[in-house]
């Protein structure tokens, strides 16, 4: 699937696996904290969430011969408490590893969003699927800043689909 297929994500069923070519925005703990503070204060976000894919990842830096270092997913559940407002602002998909809370699952269903997992602990393999990386905002957060990644043939597994179907039992 490609970026232009993002509206078709809602047709995916939990368990479906495919390769994706498109754009991810990385965001993990501290970036989520900042985004949710901005939302709470009614301020403009540094990037629009509409029809975007957030990747829970704190990558290793790239070098002269590659755009990025190891860049596998981090544990999604740590972002659970800060996820619902992002979904309500149009966030279409999240990529990470592991389970989500019942509240996140309900918000995914309500907003017709989707949650993917990818190969966890395989940061070197996934680095080969990233063709560019540029910083978007929060540079002071270092590896926790928001980066825009262009990915090619990135393996995704549909973990919670837009109808709330899930490959895992929900937590909590």
């Amino acid at each position: 699937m490609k970026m232009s297929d993002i509206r078709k994500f809602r047709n995916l069923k939990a368990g479906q696996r495919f390769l994706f070519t498109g754009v991810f925005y990385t965001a993990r703990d501290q970036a989520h904290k900042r985004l949710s503070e901005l939302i709470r204060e009614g301020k403009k976000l540094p990037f629009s969430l509409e029809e975007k894919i957030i990747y829970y990842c704190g990558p290793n830096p790239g070098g002269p011969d590659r755009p990025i270092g190891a860049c596998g997913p981090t544990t999604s559940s740590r972002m659970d408490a800060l996820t619902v407002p992002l979904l309500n602002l149009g966030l279409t998909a999240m990529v990470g590893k592991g389970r989500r809370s019942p509240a996140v699952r309900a918000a995914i269903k309500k907003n017709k969003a989707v949650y993917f997992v990818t190969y966890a602990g395989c940061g070197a393999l996934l680095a080969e699927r990233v063709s560019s990386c540029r910083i978007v905002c929060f540079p002071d957060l270092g590896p926790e800043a928001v980066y825009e990644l262009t990915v090619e043939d990135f393996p995704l597994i549909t973990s919670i689909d837009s109808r709330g179907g899930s490959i895992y039992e929900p937590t909590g």
Partner: protein
Amino acid sequence: MKTIKPEQIEDKVAALCAQANFRLRPDVLSALKAAAAGPVSAGSREALLAIVRNAEIARRKKLAICQDTGLPVVFAEVGLKAVIDGDFKKAVNKGIKKAYVQNMFRPSIQTDPLGRADRPGFYPGILHVELVPNDRIRLTVMPKGFGSENKAGLKMFNPTASSEELEKFILSVVKNAGPDACPPFIVGIGVGGTQDYAALMAKKALLRPVQRRSRKPAISLWEKSLLKKINKLGIGPLGLGGSPTALAVSVETAATHIAGLPLAVNVSCHALRSAEGII
């Protein structure tokens, strides 16, 4: 008496940090390959082979095995007949920083745990020192990722607790780690000692080659039986169901008090990294 310069310690720690993050431990790699060749589902095999391929790419292209290059835990056995000509702890941390900067590993260490105000950096690591009666320094570096470290558990049991009670707790820790902590796991367990010592044993148990069982026959049997029970949880490789959920269970024990039975569980993800060297 042998004199050891801080630069030697720094260089050795740096080399071990790099080795641990680039080269998956041979014992772990062979356990993963054996699992992939075993009677597992097609989905489990695909996941296990992706993990093996990841290790090969990391080694060949000098990419970190996992983007979480961990909080480096350094175990040092320092010979009493070795004279360290400088600050040992400083040398260890300088070695960590050197490796992490040179190899473009991620700075993951927050020196302000509550305020989180600092930009993540490369050190300090965690240092455990033991004194031994020789003139060498044995260093073991374990960069511990926090996806799995977050799932550790500790419970102070009554000395009369049944083995069923202990197992129930161990299984609950593994179940809670679930798909979040990058299975298949290696499960380290420390039994006895004090609260802190049980936790240290649980972590040190992860240093044992995964194919090697305890030398104590009863403990060895318990390790095998726990592994069977954990593998019945059906969490599976990458948490996608099936088997194996764990590659090994290693239990370390120590003397404890008549009033208590501390038990700690340290879960490792499939990317169990450590490297050892001697100066």
